[in-house]
């Protein structure tokens, strides 16, 4: 009998081994989902530009407000700081005309803003740029422009 089978181990060891393998597999699956990284940087960049274009920098007169139309007089450092701020991210706001000429560049000097120039290729930070086709009012005249927001956050 013993010569036919070259296997000798208590059955509980085998049962335990199978259970252990299954448990490890389930654990690995759970850890994959628990530790899944969700990159929210592009969404935050989009939220910031929507907040600026639809609310914070909106041009208004005695009659109404005009979402999508920016009042260039509101495009200041203090105003931008009060629009949206969060410890874990920084951003800059730039306004260009349709020829790509810079009209105004605002750096609200958030802590992370100093890392924006070195963000590309740096594994500690994520950066994204969001551009929106807008209208802006300057001296009661309406112009077309591009609002650009560069957002940086830690990984």
């Amino acid at each position, binding site marked *: 009998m013993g010569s036919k089978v070259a296997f000798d181990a208590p059955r509980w060891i085998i049962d335990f081994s199978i259970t252990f393998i299954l448990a490890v597999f389930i654990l690995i699956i759970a850890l994959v989902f628990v530790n899944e990284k969700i990159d929210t940087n592009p969404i935050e960049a989009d939220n910031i530009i929507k907040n600026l274009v639809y609310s914070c920098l909106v041009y208004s007169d005695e009659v109404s407000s005009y979402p999508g139309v920016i009042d260039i007089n509101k495009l200041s450092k203090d105003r931008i700081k009060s629009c949206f701020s969060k410890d874990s991210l920084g951003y800059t706001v730039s306004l260009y005309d349709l020829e790509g000429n810079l009209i105004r560049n605002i750096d609200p000097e958030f802590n992370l803003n100093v890392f924006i120039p070195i963000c590309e290729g740096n594994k500690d930070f994520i950066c994204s740029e969001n551009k929106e086709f807008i209208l802006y009012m300057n001296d009661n005249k*309406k112009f*077309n422009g*591009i609002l650009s927001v560069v957002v940086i956050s830690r990984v």
Partner: protein
Amino acid sequence: MFNKKGDIGYVTYLVPALMLLTIIFITFYIVFFVLGFGESNTPQTTVADQYSNIKLLNLLRSEIIQEGNVILVADYLEIANENTNGELIKLVESIPKPEFSNWHFEASTNDNKFIDIGESEDTVYFVQEINIPTKLGNVINSKLFLNCFGCSKKELEEVS
């Protein structure tokens, strides 16, 4: 130990059973984790899904010069003829877009398309539509969308 009834069968089936289990694990790993089979996109919110009509709205509120007069694009659509205003074409082309893509703007009334700017392909994003009632009682349907084949998610997010 092997004198008990069933011990030989247990050992005989153990090795193939473990091999089968391993094969199932590896197959599941490849199918679900590597290939992503059955992965649902529904709960994932992307920036590209959150676009609004603001680009088209701002385009219609933009000012252009038509025959020496400064008018809104929305007003221009009422008097547009076969020769599309060059400034309007420039405006459409200046909307931020990924490389190798273009914005398409069209206006029609009663299925008669009288303005058609930019290429129009099957792969389109950010479709925006606004209906404009005219003084004559008609409704002009204006439509703007991005035509881009092979654009990456990041490129789309930047201009959404």
